[in-house]
Structures are given as C-alpha cells and as structure tokens.
C-alpha cells in the first residue's frame, strides 16, 4: 500500500486537494495536467511576465486562489507533477499520456480524475460566425491574457458565470453590450430555498447583478435568442433576440460570449468504462459516483466539475474526499470524522448546485425551435435540419445512430459542444424524452493526437511515484 501507484488527472481545485491528501499519506502521486500551470479554470494562473495582482484577477476569490496555488507550490517536491501532458486514453489499469509528442503508458492502482468542465452550449443561428466565443473563453481571454474578445461584447446564455464574466469585463474596462439571460427571473425566487444552502455565495451573486446595473449595463432575463447576426467572412455584427415583452431587437456587438452553465468533461470516465446515469434536473448524463467519488469501476474515482458541477469550493472538497476514499480502498487508515465532514460539505454544495440548475435552467425548448439552417455541429458545419432529417426519415432516434448518419458529433471536438443540444433536437424532432436519445459515447483520443507522436523511449523505465 505504501508503494501504491496513484494518478491524479487535473491540477485544478479538485486535483490539487486530492494530491495534497495523497502526499500527506506518504504516497507520491503522479499529477497529470494538460495545462502548463496549476490552478484549473477558476484559479487559472497568468503567464509569469504578467503583473496584475491576485485581487484584480480573482476578485472576491483572491484569497482562495492564492491559498490553492501556495498549497500546490508546497507539494511540488512530494508529487510527480507532469504539466503539458494530456491523458488521451485509459485502458484497464493504465493511463495513456502524451507530452510534447511523446506517449507514455502509466499503470495505476488508483486513478482520480479531476478533469473539470467546459461550457454547456445551446446553438443559436450564427454561433459558428467568428467572434462568437464560449463564455469560459471570454473569461480566459481576460484572466490569462488581459484581452477582451471584442470591442463590444454581448453576454448571452444563463447561469451565474454569465453575470460574473460580464462584470469582470466591465471592471477591466471592456465595453459590455449587455447581459441577456434566457432564464426568467421568477425561477430564481423559486430556487431560493436551495440557493440558501450557501448564503455567502448567493449574496456575492446578487451583488454582481447590482453592480452591473449600477454601471448602466442592460441586464435582461427571460430572453429568447434569435440569431447571431453577421457574415461568414467578417464575423459577428450583432445579437438578435426576442425580449421578455416579445419584441425582436438587434443589439450591436462584434463579439458574443455564449454559455449555459457547464457540462463535465467525462471522456476519461467514459473510456475507463464508468457507468453513467441521466440526471433529470440538469438534463445531462453524469458518471455514477457514490458519496465519496467512487465510480462504478474499482480504482477509478471522479471528483470536481468533471463529476458534478459543484463550483470551486465543492471541487476542493470533492477532490479531498475522493483521495481519502482511494486511500481507504488501498488499505490506509482514514478517520471517519474527516470523511463525514467532507461529505456534509459536498452534500450542501450539491443542494446549491441543484438550486442553480433550477434558477438557471438549460433552455431545452430552444433546441426544438432552432431554424433548420442553424449549424449544430460547429466542427463539421452540420445543421439542425440535417439532424432532424436523419431522426425522422432515417429512424436515427438514438444519439450515436444520429451521429453515424449525420456526422453531428464526429468532428474535432468529439461532440463536446454539440452533443447535449443535438440530443435535445432529436428528442424534440421525434417527440421523445431526451434521456431515451442517450448520449454520445466517448472515443479516444480525448483530444486530437498527432501522427508525429512517438512512444517515449524505454517505456518500462517509468518510475512510479518518484518525486519530481
């Protein structure tokens, strides 16, 4: 057990806290991270030669960011940190990585996947025009690069991140054309009991909206996206939407930040052959986990946004909890009290998560209303009309079947951005519940894999658990 080989994928809040627990127990885990810096999405680090202070980068979360970075810096001698390394596949007991074109097969006794999330997207006509970015992209541009994605940016979608990123843009001096939320305000009131599970977070959220309004930025709820206007060569020139009062208006802008909350990155869990179940509240398929993050596959643990979108604090707790579960399963003594406290934290965060889902619902009905010419799969430029055709005329009532016939989900992104909306379009086209459409199966590689890749010389020499 002391020599147990444990791998953590991801160096965001979940991965860092997992690695910390493992190192504390005397294991020297390997930490695989696709990015070069630790911190993950929320506490993403800027390049070394940038000079903005943490308060400017992380706002109210600056103290947590600094604490997490410090924790990882302190771990560096006790973990085998492998940045710029993609986990591209997993087979039973072996993680397959690629680092600067060199592949390696790393055997493990326990694998803790903390792979984070990406934006959840609902297509809108014109979202394939240049100048449309995911909401997360808009934030990364600012946080990691100190740029705005355009001269005048409209924020469209739903979820707390919509308001957060818009206010970060406003504070940084970017021109914000407005915040356009598809969720009606009334739902926020209805979700209040659940949201009160984390009163401080709720208060921060309310303060954000107030701040945006004070700055004179239009904030509208209950809107229906109609189109991102523009031309194929010049890109975005405006955002057309139907407002709450039913008027169709065009908002001038050269960039749109689009996002409907988040979806977990589950490719590795899928390739590890973990079970998934449909989560009716968020209308997405999630890997099955127990209270501590154990997946259905022995030795594979899932934590953080990659399993459930609990937010950064929740990711830290879930990462720690999964590491404790792994330790326990590997035969280490772990105090019950520690696990119980973390479980309580996670349960509270999960209640809040469900509140957010209720307050900022995924606008499934919009999928049904998309005009046929709307591109659904940005990679392959396949339209909603084509997807409906294969569902109706070719009997493709299941997501993978529809992919086989239409190519929706066959592109470079492997269905990350079109998969969930695609399922909604199929479900609406043939009038069936979205869960019966299923989900796109994950296929290796997790990200594109270059033909120039070569196996690392002397694969066998991989020394497990040697501190860097």
């Amino acid at each position: 057990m002391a020599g147990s080989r444990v791998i953590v994928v991801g160096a965001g809040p979940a991965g860092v806290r997992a690695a910390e627990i493992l190192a504390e127990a005397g294991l020297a885990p390997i930490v695989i991270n696709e990015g070069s810096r630790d911190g993950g999405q929320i506490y993403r680090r800027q390049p070394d030669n940038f000079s903005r202070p943490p308060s400017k980068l992380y706002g109210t979360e600056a103290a947590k960011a600094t604490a997490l970075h410090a924790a990882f810096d302190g771990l560096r001698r006790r973990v085998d940190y492998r940045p710029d390394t993609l986990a591209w596949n997993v087979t039973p007991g072996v993680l397959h990585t690629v680092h600067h074109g060199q592949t390696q097969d790393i055997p493990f006794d326990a694998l803790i996947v903390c792979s984070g999330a990406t934006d959840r997207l609902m297509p809108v006509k014109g979202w394939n025009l240049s100048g449309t970015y995911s909401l997360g992209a808009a934030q990364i541009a600012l946080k990691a690069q100190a740029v705005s994605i355009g001269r005048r940016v409209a924020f469209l979608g739903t979820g707390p991140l919509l308001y957060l990123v818009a206010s970060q843009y406003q504070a940084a001096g970017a021109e914000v054309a407005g915040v356009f939320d598809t969720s009606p305000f009334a739902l926020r009131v209805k979700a209040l009991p659940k949201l009160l599970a984390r009163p401080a977070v709720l208060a921060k959220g309310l303060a954000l909206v107030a701040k945006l309004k004070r700055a004179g930025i239009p904030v509208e709820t209950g809107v229906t996206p109609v189109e991102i206007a523009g031309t194929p060569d010049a890109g975005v020139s405006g955002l057309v939407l139907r407002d709450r009062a039913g008027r169709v208006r065009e908002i001038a802008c050269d960039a749109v930040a689009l996002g409907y909350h988040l979806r977990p990155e589950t490719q590795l869990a899928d390739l590890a052959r973990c079970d998934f179940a449909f989560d009716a509240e968020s209308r997405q398929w999630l890997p099955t986990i127990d209270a501590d993050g154990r997946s259905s596959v022995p030795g594979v643990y899932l934590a953080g946004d990659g399993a459930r979108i609990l937010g950064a604090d929740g990711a830290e707790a879930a990462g720690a909890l999964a590491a404790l579960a792994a330790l326990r399963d590997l035969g280490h003594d772990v105090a019950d009290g520690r696990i119980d406290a973390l479980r309580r934290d996670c349960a509270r965060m999960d209640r809040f998560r469900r509140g957010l889902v209720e307050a900022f619902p995924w606008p499934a009905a919009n999928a049904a209303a998309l005009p046929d010419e709307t591109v659904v799969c940005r990679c392959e430029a396949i339209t909603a009309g084509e997807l409906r055709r294969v569902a109706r005329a070719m009997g493709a009532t299941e997501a993978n079947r529809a992919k086989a016939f239409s190519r929706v989900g066959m592109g470079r992104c492997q269905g990350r951005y079109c998969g969930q909306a695609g399922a909604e379009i199929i479900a609406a086209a043939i009038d069936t519940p979205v869960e019966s459409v299923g989900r796109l199966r994950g296929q290796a590689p997790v990200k594109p894999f270059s033909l120039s890749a070569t196996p690392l010389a002397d694969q066998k020499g991989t020394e497990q658990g040697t501190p860097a």
Partner: protein
Amino acid sequence: MHRDPDGSDRVGPDAGPPRHPRFVRLDETGRTPVRFTIDGRAATALEGDTLLVALLSNGAALRRSEFGDGVRAGFCLMGACQDCWVWTSDGGRLRACSTSVADGLSIATEQPEASWPVLA
C-alpha cells in the same frame, strides 16, 4: 461596429494585409514585443501571448472552416473545441489557444501546399 470598408477579414495566403484586430488589449501592455509572421507578413505580439491572442491581435480570424461556412477565430480558448488549429509554414500543426507565441514563428492560416501533395 468598427468594420473595414469592405467588411472582409480574409485569411489564407492570398489574403490582403491584416485587417482590424479582433481582440482588444485591456492591460499588461508593457511586455516585450515578439516578432513572428502570418502567411508571410510580419506581425508583432507580446511575450506571454498565446498564439491565438497573438494572431487575433493582428487580424480578425485564424483560418477558414473546411466546410464553407466562413472564417474561424477559435471558440473555447481552453483546448477543448479544437477550432483554433493553424499551421506553421513547414507544415507543423499548432493549437493556437494553448501554444505560446515565440519569436520567429512562421504561421500559415491555410495548409501549406508543401506539406500536402498536389495530385497531378
């Protein structure tokens, strides 16, 4: 919107000079300049820029969609969507949002013929 008179932001070797930048720098502008080329034209970025930011600070697009629906300028900026792959002039592939710009890089927004054979 501020648009060039002809409203176009062509990419590819035959494209004209770079048009307006898509991205706007808000801070951190005091960094060391980095010189590179886009389709053979000289361009300047700042040390620490990702290649995507470097390209979109010099123009409005990265490449053309293979399927005829216009130019593309990246989408996720976090290595997930794969929209931002460009070429080096010797046929290498770079994912612009997760590559740092470097002095002397020579970027092609269309696959260089040299690296992909022309069938007689």
